[in-house]
């Protein structure tokens, strides 16, 4: 039997830049092939070449879908293929639907473009499809705009539109990025079901853990080339290429605390006395009708990490903002280093602000766009003199070259930006660092570097972290103690390993089960 898709020696160039070079793979009907790599590795462009939508110049010895030679097919033929025979679930569930049109209309478009049907038939089919994709109340949802749907529902709607005509191939480009853990698990289950029904899947991800569950074949891409490919079992059990090993090693799930995610060795730990540096009691905060945070208490000791894990809407970010005294609690209080904190007036709090720092998910927007990295760090050091040495020292301490001081943050990579944010946060020598989803928008390999850096800094400086994330794998790897939040309340709290080994709460168990982990399909 010949394969459904056959790609031989594919290369894609944009101007003079060769983004994809010499890529070959096959996809069998009813099987899942995955492409794994960091952003900029050319994985998305490779996938889009099957749709004829790269926007660059495509060359290949063979680029075949079923009987169709995609290299010589007319634009009209390709257009008929798209949506009917090849479905596409694009990256970024939050932006892949037209915000001005009802969701149902987008799904009906697939039917309208490829079948002779009436509007009534189509809207009936749209509701069936939404139901099939696991959207509750499909009739209502079909009439709503994307802005009224949660991220998970939007991604399901996109899948519904991609599978409307039962395509033989479904391309899923980072289908679960930016989704909550349980939502991610649901989407992956849906894709798995489609595969079992006979649809071939091309899955694109930066996360080996996400693909390992579905894919039988995996390609690892780096800088436009395939560095290693093979069955996913072989790749995971016996990775040949050092880059594959590095990717595998970067996955934090089920990795005990202090286990290194990168090859760099750990720094020796400084001696600290484990006194309580930060404590909150009975924190509550209401926004309108929404009880965002409801009676949350915790204690954080010096040199330790307290993880707060929860899905979107759980109130974890509000806890961070209350702790940083950016919001006032309706009830309860926060104390810092044993002294009152949240109930102080801002003027009396200001001199003590250097004791508590913060890093955010979107590091770039936390920098004044006019300032260079050097200026940002000089400001944070509080030295009025032009202290270039201190800035260079600070940059080195987060693993960046001092030459970056002259650059502006937006020209740096996501990982470098987060390192600069960390440098700025540790410059005033704080006791506590609030980390709000610091690695959520980073590729797994970059995430590993940042997590190891945070670990090193904690040891050498005796820092305490309040580590907020939606990612179970990350939080288990990073924290000593754990709080699980849902709808503003603490559903479970305790030492991290205890919570993971014997989750007492039903929701915690569900969360842990949903976290993607590396597992080879047999």
């Amino acid at each position, binding site marked *: 039997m010949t394969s459904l898709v056959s790609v031989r020696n594919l290369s894609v160039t944009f101007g003079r830049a060769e983004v994809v070079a010499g890529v070959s793979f096959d996809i069998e009907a009813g099987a899942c092939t995955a492409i794994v790599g960091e952003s900029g590795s050319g994985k998305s462009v490779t996938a889009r070449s099957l749709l004829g939508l790269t926007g660059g110049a495509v060359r290949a010895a063979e680029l075949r879908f079923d009987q169709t030679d995609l290299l010589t097919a007319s634009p009209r033929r390709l257009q008929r293929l798209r949506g009917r025979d090849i479905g596409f679930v694009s990256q970024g569930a939050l932006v892949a639907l037209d915000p001005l049109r009802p969701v149902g209309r987008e799904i009906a478009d697939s039917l309208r473009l490829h079948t002779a049907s009436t509007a009534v038939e189509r809207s009936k089919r749209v509701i069936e499809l939404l139901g099939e994709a696991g959207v509750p109340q499909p009739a209502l949802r079909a009439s709503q705009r994307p802005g009224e749907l949660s991220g998970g529902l939007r991604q399901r709607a996109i899948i519904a539109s991609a599978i409307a005509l039962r395509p033989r191939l479904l391309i899923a480009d980072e289908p679960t990025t930016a989704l909550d853990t349980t939502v991610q698990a649901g989407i992956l289950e849906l894709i798995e079901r489609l595969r079992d029904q006979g649809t071939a899947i091309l899955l694109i991800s930066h996360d080996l853990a996400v693909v390992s569950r579905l894919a039988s074949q995996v390609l690892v891409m780096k800088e436009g080339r395939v560095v290693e490919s093979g069955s996913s079992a072989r790749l995971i059990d016996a990775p040949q290429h050092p880059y594959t090993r590095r990717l595998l090693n970067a996955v934090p799930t089920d990795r005990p605390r202090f286990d290194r995610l990168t090859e760099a060795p750990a720094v020796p730990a400084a001696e600290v006395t484990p006194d309580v540096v930060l404590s909150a009691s009975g924190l509550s905060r209401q926004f309108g009708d929404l009880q965002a945070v409801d009676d949350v208490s915790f204690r954080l000791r010096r040199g330790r990490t307290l993880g707060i894990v929860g899905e979107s809407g759980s109130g974890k970010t509000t806890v961070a903002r209350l702790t*940083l005294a*950016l919001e006032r609690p309706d009830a309860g209080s926060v104390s810092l280093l044993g002294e009152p904190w949240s109930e102080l007036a801002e003027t009396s709090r*200001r*001199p*003590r*602000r*250097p004791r*508590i*720092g*913060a890093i*955010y998910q*979107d590091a770039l*927007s*936390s*920098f*004044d*766009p*006019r300032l260079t990295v050097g200026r940002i760090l000089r*400001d*944070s050091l509080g030295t009025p003199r032009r202290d270039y040495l201190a800035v260079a020292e600070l940059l080195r301490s987060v693993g960046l070259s001092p030459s970056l001081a002259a650059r*502006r943050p937006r020209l740096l990579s996501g990982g470098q930006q987060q390192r600069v944010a960390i440098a*700025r946060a540790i410059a*005033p020598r704080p006791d506590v660092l609030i980390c709000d989803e610091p690695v959520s928008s980073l590729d797994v390999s970059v995430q590993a570097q940042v997590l190891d850096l945070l670990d090193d800094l904690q040891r050498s400086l005796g820092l305490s972290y309040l580590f907020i994330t939606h990612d179970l794998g990350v939080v288990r790897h990073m924290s000593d103690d754990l709080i699980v939040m849902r709808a503003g309340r603490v559903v479970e709290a305790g030492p991290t390993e205890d919570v993971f080994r014997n989750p007492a709460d039903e929701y915690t168990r569900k969360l842990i089960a949903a976290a993607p982990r590396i597992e080879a399909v047999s």
Partner: protein
Amino acid sequence: MRRVTLVLAVAVIVFLVLAALAPDLLAPGNPLAIHPLQSFRGPSFAHPFGTDESGRDIYTRIVHGTGASLLIGLAATAIGVGLALVFGLLAGLGPRWLDFGTTRFLEVLFAFPGLLFALLFIVIYGPGVVTSTVAVGLATAPGYARIIRSQVLVVRRAPYLEAALVLGRGPAHRLFRHLLPNVAGSLFVLVTLGIGQSIVWASSLSYLGLGAVPPAAEWGAMLSAGRTYISSFWWMTFFPGLFIVLSAISTTVLGRGIQQRGRLS
């Protein structure tokens, strides 16, 4: 393409600035010299833009009028942006009631759209260079004020201001080191784009006989003078108008160029 237009725009602006600062360098003649025997000559080698009803060379008059015309545009923009800055900052930085009040006030001003406010102002204070310049400034102020207010609000809500608060920076530091400098960037673009528009507006008022008056060698006044002869001696209005168009286009292109750069780098 974009680069070519930008270079052309800068060349025009350099020419205009040179004409404003040292007109004799580009046109050594006397703009007010009368030669009755050479009146109403069409464009020729001796008079590239022709002559007017008194035989004055129009090219010389245009070059010598550049300073006054640019000054009117600059002054009107300064008045407009200056007022707008006050209102925009009050609304953007002040307490909620002040924002509410200022916004309502601006809404009322918006209900005098376009030239209307300028015309009302001229009815009250009478026509003339000064009134028309002030009128254009006042008429453009609400639009600028709205842009400045929304810019202030965007920067005020920016995460980097909160990051500065977390680092323990006081209100003065946040205002003067972060907020105002970031608003100033877009203000610069606003001013560049505004000068061209102000010149167009002021010259429109002059053309209608409500601004600068002949025999001054100011572009608007030249237009106003040429109006009477428009059907027979087109060059008297065409060439001064061309310079208004050129200055408006080049400042717009320059302003947009700066805007693009700010977005990219």
